[in-house]
């Protein structure tokens, strides 16, 4: 038994690249899970997708200018969010429509740049991440970016919750609603940038939605929702790493599959429970 545990769970981490991947996966999983609670409740799922796709041209431009890629990615991600807000406020088009145009346009611009410019940027790594290839330098960057997000959410989670739940009241109660709105966007962009190396543009959206969605199904208060989301995300990241190691498949998709699996399980449990309580309720009303 001990040997089995050691073989399946510990042996993979005898390798340095697996240890680095583990740290990166836990950080990225946790920070995305925290934000996912807000995105799911605010209805910002598409916003997450938009910002993550929009970082591509920023990365290419930053490479050309010799700046840190994370800086370019962050600027482009924020640019997408702000541009979306501006167009929405100055036209009759709905927000999700605007987002679709802005992020697809920016993503395409990034692709065009990449095809015309000689760079050492691997498109596949940006799209799907390369968690087994992260170095300690990358981890330091991930730690800095996700650390800011985790710290801000830890300190101000209640303010963000009120803003998402009842923005009109938040304003009347004297909370800085605009600052909260933009802070949430900044945190979103920061976590996407932090996640790029690990899971890439395409799959980060899963990390930014699935944990919050699953936790939403099984919790009645927000604090518990956040804790559950983080626990589930970290579990999926660690399990995904181990499974991908033994089965020799790409890590990020395994993590995402596990998260989708957890969501399906929570959904199924809810259905069963509702059915049961429905029967129970019917019985109770009959006798009463």
């Amino acid at each position: 038994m001990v040997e089995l545990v050691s073989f399946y769970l510990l042996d993979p981490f005898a390798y340095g690249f697996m240890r680095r991947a583990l740290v990166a996966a836990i950080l990225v999983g946790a920070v995305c899970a925290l934000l996912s609670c807000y995105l799911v409740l605010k209805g910002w799922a598409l916003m997450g997708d938009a910002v993550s796709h929009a970082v591509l041209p920023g990365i290419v431009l930053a490479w050309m200018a010799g700046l840190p890629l994370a800086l370019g990615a962050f600027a482009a991600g924020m640019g997408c969010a702000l541009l979306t807000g501006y167009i929405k406020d100055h036209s009759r088009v709905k927000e999700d429509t605007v987002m679709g145009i802005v992020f697809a346009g920016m993503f395409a611009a990034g692709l065009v740049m990449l095809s015309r410019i000689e760079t050492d940027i691997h498109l596949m790594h940006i799209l799907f991440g390369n968690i087994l290839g992260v170095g300690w330098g990358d981890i330091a960057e991930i730690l800095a970016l996700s650390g800011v997000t985790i710290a801000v959410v830890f300190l101000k989670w209640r303010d963000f919750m009120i803003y998402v739940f009842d923005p009109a009241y938040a304003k009347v109660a004297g909370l800085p609603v605009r600052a909260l709105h933009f802070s949430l966007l900044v945190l979103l962009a920061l976590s996407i940038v932090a996640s790029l190396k690990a899971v890439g543009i395409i799959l980060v959206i899963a990390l930014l939605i699935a944990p919050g969605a699953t936790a939403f199904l099984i919790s009645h208060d927000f604090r518990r929702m956040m804790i559950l989301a983080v626990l589930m995300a970290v579990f999926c990241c660690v399990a995904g790493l181990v499974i991908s190691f033994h089965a020799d498949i790409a890590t990020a998709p395994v993590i995402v599959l596990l998260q989708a699996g957890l969501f399906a399980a929570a959904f199924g449990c809810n259905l069963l429970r509702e059915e049961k309580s429905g029967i129970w309720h019917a019985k109770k009303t009959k006798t009463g």
Partner: protein
Amino acid sequence: MNDKQDDLITVEGLSVFYANGHKALDHVGFTLKSGVICGLVGANGSGKSTLFKTIMGFLKPATGTVRIAGMPVAQALKQHLVSYVPQSEDIDWNFPVLVEDVVMMGRYSRMGFLRIPSREDREKVTQALEEVGLTAFRRRQIGALSGGQRKRVFLARALAQEARIILLDEPFTGVDIQTEKAIIALLQDLRDRGSLILVSTHNLGSVPDFCDEAILINRRILAAGPIAETFTEANLAEAFGGMLRRVQLGGGALHDDEDPRSVTVITDDERPLVLYGHTENQEIMPHRDEKAGKR
């Protein structure tokens, strides 16, 4: 009562435009004092919610000013002077918050940077829950409440906030008579303790029952002041145009004597407004729900 100090909301020459350039409010002005329940009455699109939003600081006036307790809106909001009870449709009832969490939000603006509730905050929440009769439900998720209980959660939040001004947006839509009475009793209690309560409604019939004053609005103020002066047929006709059903019952149809008076019933298919008098029906008939129920 005539002291300037009592003026809680002072609106002067207020004009507000929609984003598309249409005028939503046109030179609106009025003054409201503490210890008053005021009904803000107008048809849909009359500028009721625009006025609310301007008082809450969401919209910037093109001209004119709103002052709350003598201060600009932003400053008054920072001092937790204003509370707001939203329409039920504006709330996500699936949001994972407990009843007590929502009520605790009323205390947030008084808490420190980390928003950690003090003992006083907890006591105020308990007290507010007790006042609205939701103590037994404090650990429930808000979606697991009945319609009337849902409304009371947000009233409790306003209570916990100890605001001097409470704005209620259409509080009686989708609410049964029992809950409506409970809410009104609570509002009257708050008024007696010196709060100013501004209720936006298109439910004409209930306004004379519980409001002390009324503001009739249709982009501009049609009438503002005590109910007896403002809630006249002429003003209402101007406020609602052809949107109301009006039934007049002549004296002959009502009784066998020579009494020339007639009854006018004005309704928008919700609770009717009943006016009784000579040619211009000025008197407002109180509703006799209780007596009718006993019969």
